[in-house]
């Protein structure tokens, strides 16, 4: 459980308390614009692209090879890009801020 802050493409800030699951499932459950999660969270569609606040990158960790394959051709990809469905929320991530890329 953790508090997670999403910043949407139209600069709306959505703060979710007691978040559980993945960044994708929490985003979908809270109607965060730009997080669609079309494939249900199996790293197949790239509709949950987020940019992790650089200060948090160590705790969140880097993308896997398969995940990077989906991300690397996206226009707004960076070293802080992750697919939300591949980031499981733990108490370690309490306070995390991510920017939703959307499409």
């Amino acid at each position: 459980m953790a508090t997670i802050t999403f910043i949407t493409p139209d600069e709306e800030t959505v703060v979710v308390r007691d978040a559980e699951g993945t960044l994708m499932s929490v985003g979908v459950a809270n109607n965060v614009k730009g997080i669609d999660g079309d494939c249900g969270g199996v790293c197949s569609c790239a509709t949950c692209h987020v940019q992790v606040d650089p200060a948090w990158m160590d705790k969140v960790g880097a993308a896997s090879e398969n995940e990077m394959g989906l991300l690397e051709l996206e226009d707004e990809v960076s070293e802080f890009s992750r697919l939300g469905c591949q980031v499981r929320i733990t108490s370690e991530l309490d306070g995390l801020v991510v920017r939703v890329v959307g499409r």
Partner: protein
Amino acid sequence: MSEHSVIVGAGHGAAQLCASLRSEGWSGPITLIGEEPVLPYHRPPLSKTNLNPSGEHAPPLIRPDSFYVSKEITVLTNARVDAIDRARKLVRVGARDIAYDKLALCLGSVHIQPPIEGIDGARVFHLRTEAECTAIRSRVRPGARAVIIGGGFIGLEVAASLRRLGLEITVLERAPRVLSRVTSPEMSAFFEQLHRQEGVRLFCDTLVERITENGDVLEVWSKGSSESHKADFVVLGAGAAPNDALARSCGLDVDSGIVVNEYNQTSDPDIYALGDCCTQFRPLYQRRIRLESVQNALDQAKTVAASLNGKNTPHDAVPWFWSDQYEVKLQMVGLSDGFNRMVVRGSPEASQSFSLWYFRDGKLIAVDAVNDSAAYACAMKCMKTGLSPDPGHVGDEQMPIKEILRLTQENQHA
């Protein structure tokens, strides 16, 4: 006066339509009517993680209960629409009539029941719903024997999942190769080899004629064979047909699916249809197409939501699919049917990471990628913009995917 949208069916497309109708500005009441006892849920895990007795049993909901409450969407579960009265604009649910202004049919598909004697037995399962997944899961234990009839996506995914759980698996496919409806012989061969390496007994060109019970054991008999395949239970994955009976009975145009125009509107302007149940002319392929996929249902739902809010935009999404079996992730973009040149990138024999690129008269029409999401992403980018990479570049494994995409886009602007 605010108009009432009624959505019949509660799959992926229906859930997406609820969300998109509201985000596009629909302010009238929305009612979702589904036959199952639960809110719309993700179906792909039914053939994968949800079969594991020690894993998560319930598939995840597409949207939580709070979504339907906050968006003021009335959800009727365990509710079946028996008839549509188009003249009076009513749907009949049991003894109750519900009036609609706009109706969306998200009826999905139904499994094909092949003409096999004994197919109605208690230990012969289909897999389309959570309840059916639960029935199969209750039979799962290491060493149990399962015969799977049909080597399509569902059959092979179930085979992989059950094999990983320690079951003895036999797959019987009627066609000369698995996945024959959806991919090329080369990709079929890869999946046949994969399953055999994992210890699945896989037989193609095998037409099942009857299933008999011999005490606790089921015996599955195929044409021309004097020996049966023995099983503790059988799973049927023999394909699906559009669930279009309701539409036919109220006189809508139906032809292997509910016929819709580019806005997913049926022959009745107040009734729309989307997802597996409908068939639509697609300019990209110059023919009418009915697709069974999550992506198609989601994209068509967005098309319907836009139309109902007065923003007609024709549906022209590029189809994509995925399948997870063992450690293999297959990602497909486009439809390869009708290709006249195929380029292999990587080596299916040497590794479990490669892609097949299908061209028709020099134009890229589809890519199937195995454990190569970058190739899939590149192909998606190309197809969305109508670009075709140089087949020579694609076949050169030393040329990075990023470079192929850059050259393809540069070529376009040159």
